[in-house]
Each structure stands twice: as structure tokens, then as C-alpha cells.
């Protein structure tokens, strides 16, 4: 917080008239490297100027460490009393260079990276990435049905868990801690399913180019049915708790306003766009993984505000649960990886006593009986497969909006370039438009309604 103190000595009382002596940023070479200086004499001038004006303009750094900013998001707010006059975002605190790292690993290993981008929507990252790789390979029509059904199943479970976190943290930021407890309680049910199916609660790398890393384990279908039953009972509790509650509405209604024109200009997609009344959903507009065969609706509201987005997320969770149920019903036995042995790993992973790993039967085979199988395994796992040169764009409807992957291949065994168009990154640009002119306390609500996840924003 940089409130100018009036008793600070001023070097130039009539500073505005005099030719200002701004010290420009300087560069010094030291043995440790380059050092940049931005020190100068202009602070006194700024302080004096601020002291003369009688308003209460101050600039507040909210974050990067702030519990209500969804990770390491830094909000720079210029506030006049309680009103936010200008708002800017500082991002990049969680930049981990995933896109660069991808270029140094094989196409298959890429899933291990992308699952860590937006860590609340790992299956969407994996699916979008794998769809791009499959499109480059030209095998998108050969993905087995069972793999597609499981992909849809996991994505919709993921939509549930992501929306649950959005609602839970959003509620917590308002002080509605019961919503938080409920949200994380139900998310835990979803994470248990992830753990059962993929072996991990996060960072799964379960969806692979060509299909899945392994089939559903025994007992998964029963667990899914049990989960659906439980969620049917739990979902209405959010309605009972929040929907229509005068306190909740008072905090959310008309906050974070962004109309359709604003959404289109700023590229906002997902619940933000649908809260402006446009039923745009890639699952309907450009179906992938067989979404056109599922029965679900795309809810919209036309309130353009945080409350509308909250209602949308609730409704989308109900629709997701519908899709999950349909997925479970149509699970047919079959392969979960393409038949091409030059792409599919020779064996699926197996769950051992120490977690998910190599299939022991397969190791026995390649180490004991087949030299050629061993060579093939070694080549495919260490070198990977080649992808014909070219570029492609694959997009999925993540819980936050359009998650796009631009993948470029130079014909090698590693991606030449993979760019993720993360919806959190794009939607976060709307923060200024939503917050400026509003109250400081409403910034929290507006940001929560965007549901940014910094792992996805910064990548």
C-alpha cells in the first residue's frame, strides 16, 4: 500500500512547472550479471503531488499471496475510498514453462506436462492435447468407442469437480464457509473416483494420444453408480443453501457485469459467455469424442452477473451428472487404445501393490521371450512415434470456456510447438472491465465468478 504521507519533504515545491528530472532506468553490469536500476528522484515529486490533491486515491496490491485470488494472482487496484477506479492484473508468478518443456519430450510424455497446466481440469487438458496429436496423426476416427466414452465420462466428472471448487472457493471468499465445506466434501467423492480409475487424484496423464493409458479397473462402474446416487442427493443442497438466499444474492447480483459485446470483444467463453445469454458450447457447436450422441442441455442466463454464473455452474453440474450417467450406461467392453502398434504402447499400465506401473506380464514377455518385442518397446518408449509435419488446432469446452491447443509438428518424435489457449488466461482479461467502478469487496466476487486457475493462466 503506498499512501503518500503529507509530511514527506518535497524537493521541488512547484514541481509540475519545473523541467522534471526523471532519472531513467539504468543498467549496470556486475560480476553477478546485469542489474537494472529504477531508482530516481521522482518519488518526492509524486508524493508531493499526491499530498496536494485532496482525494483518497491509493494503490493497493492485492496478491500475489492472497487467499481469495485463486492462487498467485496479483491484482493492482487503484481505489478512491471504497471505489475501484482502475484495476490491472499481474500474472506470471506460476509460469513453469510447460509449453517449452513439451518440446523436449516425446508426444506421449506430453500428457504428463499438460495435465499440470490447469490443475483443476486435468482431463480437459489431456483430452485437448491428445485430440490435437491425433488430428496431426490423422487417427482421430480410429479412437475406440470405449476410450471416447471414458474420456467423456472423465471430462464430465471433471466439470463437476471444477465447478464444485469454483462454487466452494467463491462461497468461502464471501464468508459462506458451509458452501466451501459442501463443495470440497463432494469434490472429494469425485477425486476418489479419479484415484480409483487413474491411480491419482490429480496430474493423471491417463488420456494418451490414441486412447487411454489403461482400462477402467474392476469395481469402477459400481463406484460410479454409487457416486451418481450420492450426487443426486447432494446437488440440491447447494440450491437449498444459496439459490435465492437474500444474503447470497445481495453479494452476487449485478456484480461483475459483462455483457455479450464485452464477452465477444474480450474473447470470454464458458459460463461467462453463457451468462450473457449466448448458448455457445463447443460440445454442441463442434462436437468431439461423440458428444453429439449424448442428451444434455446448454443452460444460459441473461443476467450477465456473478449470480447468473453461479446458477449456470449449478445447472451445468446437473447436466454433467446426466452425461456421466449416460456414459456409465453405454460402457461396452472393448479396446481403449488404437490398434496401431506404432502408436499404442505395447502393454497397458497395471495397478501393482506400489501403485500404477508397468504390467508385469509384459515385462516377463519382453525380458524373457521376445527380443523383437523388447526392441519395439524400447524404441517406442524412449524415442516415441513420429508425427507428420503440419499444424492443427483442437478445442474442447472446459468448465472455464474454450480450451484450445495449437500443435505444430516438424515430423519428429517430439512436439515442435504446442500452445495452449487457456480459457482462464483469456477470461481473466475481463477482470478490469468487471471491476472498475465497483466496490473493493466486489472485486473478489467478480474474480471468483471468472474462476481463474493460475496454473492454467501462467502455464
Amino acid at each position, binding site marked *: 500500500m503506498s499512501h503518500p504521507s503529507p509530511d514527506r519533504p518535497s524537493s521541488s515545491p512547484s514541481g509540475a512547472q519545473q523541467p522534471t528530472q526523471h532519472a531513467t532506468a539504468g543498467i549496470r553490469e556486475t560480476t553477478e550479471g546485469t542489474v537494472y536500476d529504477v531508482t530516481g528522484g521522482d518519488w518526492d515529486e509524486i508524493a508531493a503531488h499526491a499530498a496536494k490533491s485532496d482525494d483518497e486515491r491509493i494503490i493497493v496490491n492485492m496478491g500475489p499471496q492472497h487467499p481469495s485470488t485463486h492462487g498467485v494472482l496479483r491484482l493492482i487496484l487503484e481505489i478512491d475510498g471504497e471505489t475501484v477506479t482502475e484495476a490491472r492484473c499481474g500474472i*506470471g508468478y506460476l509460469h513453469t514453462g510447460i509449453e*517449452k518443456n513439451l518440446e*523436449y519430450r516425446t508426444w506421449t510424455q506430453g500428457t504428463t506436462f499438460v495435465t499440470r497446466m490447469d490443475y483443476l481440469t486435468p482431463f480437459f487438458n489431456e483430452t485437448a492435447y491428445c485430440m490435437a496429436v491425433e488430428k496431426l496423426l490423422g487417427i482421430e476416427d480410429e479412437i475406440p468407442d470405449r476410450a471416447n466414452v471414458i474420456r467423456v465420462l472423465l471430462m464430465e466428472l471433471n466439470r463437476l469437480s471444477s465447478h464444485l471448487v469454483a462454487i466452494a472457493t467463491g462461497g468461502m471468499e464471501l464468508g459462506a464457509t458451509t458452501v466451501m465445506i459442501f463443495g470440497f466434501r463432494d469434490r472429494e467423492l469425485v477425486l476418489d473416483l479419479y484415484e480409483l480409475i487413474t491411480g491419482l487424484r490429480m496430474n493423471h496423464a491417463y488420456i494418451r494420444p490414441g486412447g487411454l493409458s489403461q482400462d477402467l479397473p474392476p469395481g469402477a462402474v459400481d463406484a460410479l453408480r454409487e457416486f451418481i446416487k450420492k450426487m443426486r442427493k447432494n446437488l440440491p443442497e447447494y440450491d437449498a443453501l444459496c439459490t435465492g438466499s437474500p444474503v447470497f444474492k445481495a453479494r452476487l447480483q449485478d456484480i461483475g457485469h459483462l455483457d455479450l459485446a464485452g464477452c465477444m470483444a474480450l*474473447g470470454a467463453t464458458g459460463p461467462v459467455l453463457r451468462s450473457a445469454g449466448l448458448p455457445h458450447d463447443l460440445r454442441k457447436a463442434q462436437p468431439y469424442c461423440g458428444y453429439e450422441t449424448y442428451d444434455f442441455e446448454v443452460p444460459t442466463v441473461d443476467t450477465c452477473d456473478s449470480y447468473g454464473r453461479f446458477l449456470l455452474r449449478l445447472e451445468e453440474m446437473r447436466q454433467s451428472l446426466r452425461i456421466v450417467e449416460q456414459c456409465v450406461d453405454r460402457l461396452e467392453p472393448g479396446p481403449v487404445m488404437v490398434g496401431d502398434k506404432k502408436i499404442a504402447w505395447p502393454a497397458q499400465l497395471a495397478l501393482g501393490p506400489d501403485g500404477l506401473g508397468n504390467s508385469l506380464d509384459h515385462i516377463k514377455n519382453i525380458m524373457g521371450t521376445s527380443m523383437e518385442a523388447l526392441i519395439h518397446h524400447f524404441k517406442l518408449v524412449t524415442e516415441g512415434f513420429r508425427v507428420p*509435419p503440419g*499444424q492443427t488446432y483442437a478445442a474442447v469446452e472446459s468448465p472455464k470456456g474454450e480450451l484450445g491447443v495449437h500443435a505444430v509438428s516438424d515430423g519428429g518424435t517430439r512436439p515442435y510447438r504446442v500452445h495452449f*489457449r487457456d480459457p482462464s488466461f*483469456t477470461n481473466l482479461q475481463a477482470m478490469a472491465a468487471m471491476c472498475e467502478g465497483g466496490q473493493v469487496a466486489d472485486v473478489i466476487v467478480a474474480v471468483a465468478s471468472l474462476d481463474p486457475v493460475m496454473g492454467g493462466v501462467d502455464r
Partner: protein
Amino acid sequence: MTDKKGNGPANGTPGHAANAANGANGSVPKQQNEAGEVIGVRRGMFGANNGGDTSGYGGLVRTVRLPGASSRPYGGWFDEVADELEGALEEQGLLPGNAIEKTVVDRDELTFHIHREHLLQVARTCRDDPALRFELCTGVSGVHFLEDKGRELHAVYHLRSITHNRLIRLEVTAPDADPHIPSVVEVYPTNDWHEREVYDFFGLIFDGHPALTRIMMPDDWQGFPQRKDYSLGGIPVEYKGAQIPAPDQRRSYS
């Protein structure tokens, strides 16, 4: 929103029925009538370049080409979009051949390669022309082709039309020596952060951007990390005593 299956690029356009047949072996769909952009040359087979490759593949030389220009008909709605775009540009007094370097149809996706000086006008036309109506820009992605001399830096834009349920790609190139591309922020404000990101990682300067500063890397960072000549690791880091082996110490397959 329409959910007509045959209409979207994801679902295979009529002109590409032949491609579905050869999709199985992963070959590049459609024989291109132009050779395509050379982005590099591969030598050998197993990554050994110090004479250690005794496999017999050591002398192998392969040229890597990106898919080249396509000829009409492009198939499906691609021709309609191309006609509309060319017609709209001509109406504005701009010869389409001057603005559009080439049109590439590959993997059921339509790409217009645009000369950089006309990018802004083309983007505005794509957004405003009622028959095109690409309302949504999904940002810009940079690509660095180190060996594509004179066209090293590529900026790739994906434009989505919600009205017509279509997706096209615009591609612009700039040489490393003059890394300037006009900013499209005034047409698509959403590209503000996206262009900053590409600048941050590739050093592409978007002329006319309201505040082109680094967005992910620290402000005083030197170099542009996603360029191909910028190594992964191997650079001094701030942590005391930390060392990261340079990637050229690791094995790579050519």
C-alpha cells in the same frame, strides 16, 4: 447453435472424403500442388552426429516441409469463406493476391497465409463481413522456425465464427531480423494478453499494441525463452549452486 454434423471442420468436409481413407497410415492428407515451406533438414536416423552412427542410416537426408498451398476446390465451406474473403478484400480495393500469400487446406483445416502489412485489414474484414463474421479470436500463437530463413517467426491466429460455426486460421510471418507484425488488438481486444505472451516468449513485436510488455517472465528477463535457439535449462539460475545440464547434453532423435 447448429449441430449439423457435416458442416464443421472437425467432422470432415465433403472435399476431404478421400483423406479419410488414407488417414489410417497417418500421411498428410491431399497431395499439395506446391512443394510447401521447408523448415529444416534431418540427417541420419539416431541422433548421433559425430560419426558414431554405424547403423547404415547415417547418410540419410530428409527435408522437412510443411504442407504447401492447396488448389481449388478446397471443399465444403472452405471455398465459400475463401470467395467471401477475397471478394471483400477486392471491394476494399485490395487485390487478394497481394494480401493472401497462399491458402492451405490441411487436416480439414483452412489456413490463410497473410502478408503482414495487410493483417489488420484482413482481420477486420473477417470480423465485420456479414458472410464471414468471425467474432471470436482465440488468441495468437507464435512459432519459431529457425531454419526457415527470412520467415523465421510465425504468428498464428485462430478465428472462430459462432454465427456460422466455422474456424479458420490466419498465419503471418516475420523475419528474425525485423520481428514486427501489426497488432490486431484494435480489432480483437482479447489479443491484448495473447500478443504480450508471444512477445514475451518469441520477441515478436506487435506494432500498435497499447502496452507491449512482458507478461509471464520477469520484466528484466533477457532473451525470449520459446525461441528455438534459446536452450531449455543450462542457463544460470538464481538459486545458489544449482546446475541444470543443457539439453544438448541429452540424447535427441533426428
